[in-house]
């Protein structure tokens, strides 16, 4: 077993080095694919997080003008609550809203700037939960009816629908592109390893004649493929590590107050995905290349 491992590893490294131009070309295409894959995953998980955030909010939020008489707000709240499609209506005061905002900012590690102004810039709101998130009925009209009470109505569901559509399209297109790129990479790996196999055709013939098992014939090449895959993923992870702060920055700029977590968990998943995809493509490509050289 030990001699098998030593044998396979030694030959894989030898093969990679002898065929280094092709091996490196394969590694570079592998890196390109893995970077693309990571980008797609990042954008999709950003959108996904945004979606969840928005969905978790009430479906309709009406921001109130400052200084409206409390009884007018209470009346409006009763009116809306009486509508058949409405589940609940809650009132968030300016103070509560500010506290929420601060908590959120702190969770994302951003400085709290609200303390500097001395006044509270966050509006109070009425938050409507619908029985069926897609059934708005007259809610928006009723909210907007009394003059001067409601400054702006945020129909979260509309935003959600748009996000779902974008995410869906991106996922489909992204997966399609990914699949094509992955196939190209597989093709390149297959060809690279095939060259390595052909360079050793005489050795393989002798190995078969003297009774080497398929494992001894196959594994050196599979390891060579894995080497391409793992080297590719390492480089990719290096690139991602360097680019991580910029990506985080971009992410929070684009998505603004949505608390997208470019957090540890996403990082770990990305590492697993990149290494897994690299190893899978490398190993699979090599397995395909060496297949016809095994015992009939």
């Amino acid at each position, binding site marked *: 077993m030990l001699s098998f491992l030593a044998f396979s590893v030694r030959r894989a490294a030898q093969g990679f080095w002898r065929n280094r131009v092709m091996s490196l070309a394969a590694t570079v295409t592998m890196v390109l694919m893995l970077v693309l894959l990571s980008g797609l995953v990042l954008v999709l998980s950003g959108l996904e997080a945004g979606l969840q955030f928005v969905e978790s909010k009430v479906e309709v939020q009406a921001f109130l003008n400052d200084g409206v008489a409390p009884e007018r707000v209470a009346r409006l709240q009763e009116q809306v609550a009486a509508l058949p499609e409405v589940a609940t209506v809650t009132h968030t005061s300016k103070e509560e809203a500010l506290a929420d905002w601060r908590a959120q900012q702190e969770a994302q590690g951003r400085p709290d700037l609200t303390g500097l102004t001395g006044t509270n810039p966050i509006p109070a709101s009425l938050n409507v939960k619908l029985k069926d998130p897609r059934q708005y009925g007259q809610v928006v009209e009723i909210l907007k009816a009394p003059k001067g009470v409601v400054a702006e109505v945020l129909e979260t569901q509309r935003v959600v629908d748009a996000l779902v559509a974008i995410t869906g399209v991106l996922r489909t297109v992204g997966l399609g592109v990914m699949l094509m790129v992955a196939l190209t990479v597989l093709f390149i790996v297959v060809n690279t390893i095939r060259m390595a196999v052909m360079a050793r055709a*005489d050795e393989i013939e002798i190995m078969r*004649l*003297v*009774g080497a*098992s398929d494992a*001894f014939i196959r594994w050196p090449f599979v390891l060579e493929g894995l080497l391409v895959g793992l080297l590719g993923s390492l480089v990719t992870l290096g690139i991602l590590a360097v680019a991580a702060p910029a990506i985080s920055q971009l992410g929070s700029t684009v998505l603004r107050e949505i608390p997208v977590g470019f957090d540890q968990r996403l990082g770990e998943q990305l590492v697993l995905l990149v290494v897994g995809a690299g190893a899978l493509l490398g190993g699979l490509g090599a397995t395909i290349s060496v297949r016809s050289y095994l*015992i009939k």
Partner: protein
Amino acid sequence: MPSRGRLTDAPVASVPAVAEPYVTFSHLRASLRPRAGALEAVAPAPSALTPDRPADPALARPGADATIPDLRHAAIALHDVTKVYPNGKRALIEVDLVVPEGDFIFLVGPSGAGKSTLIKLLIRDELATTGTVLVAGRDLARLRRRHVPHLRREIGIIFQDFKLLPSKTVHENVGFALEVTGTPRREVGPAVERALALVGLSAQAEQRPNQLSGGEQQRTAIARAMVHGPRIIIADEPTGNLDPLISWEIIQLLLRINELGTTVLMATHNAEVVTALRKRVVALEEGRIVRDEVGGYHRQY
């Protein structure tokens, strides 16, 4: 290969290997029934197939038909073997052949007669289209793919073109056969030295094939074939690339290996050698065995 001896240990005609899959009597009977007469006509008498061998109690079955030769003791047994290549070429037709353990046999015949095809069947590089091929106690039609390497470790194969690796030394070329079959590193060196001593190449161990004469290259290949301590040596025109004197050297070496207990089957065009040695000669012509007798190379091929 811990149990089987390598060269120095005990290169005697071996006990039938406990190998998969077992050839059962019922299986043999079934395969022999249609042409049992033909097999006996070609093969030496059954008693010659099992010379003075004490009956193995594990293998003997009460009521076994005494007229059926105990083919598991034969190194090689072919029964009614036909090989048709995918292109429709019938390279072997109804071939029956039994080679007892310890024999030395020449396979002769004109170019295209099917000698190499027969050898490919024996090392299971090709499978017989119909018929039974038994090698070292294994029925090759029923041998699983993953057990093919075990079969090949019991056979040493030698070719006309040596098939040495140019970048490796003599020692490394011979050791390669052990290295790629998972032999522990510390066992490789001594086994290679024994094999090189057998073929008389100890002094050239560190040379590369391009620094050797043709005869020395072939002896390297023979050392590689012997390094596993095989039961059978199969040589396909091993002297085809060598001049007569060197050819004799190689034949002498194969004879010595045979005397040490290894069965040798050698395909050759070399009439001189075949005629000079009183060994069994099997002649193929257009895929059929046309003669099987001791000595002589009656026709010029």
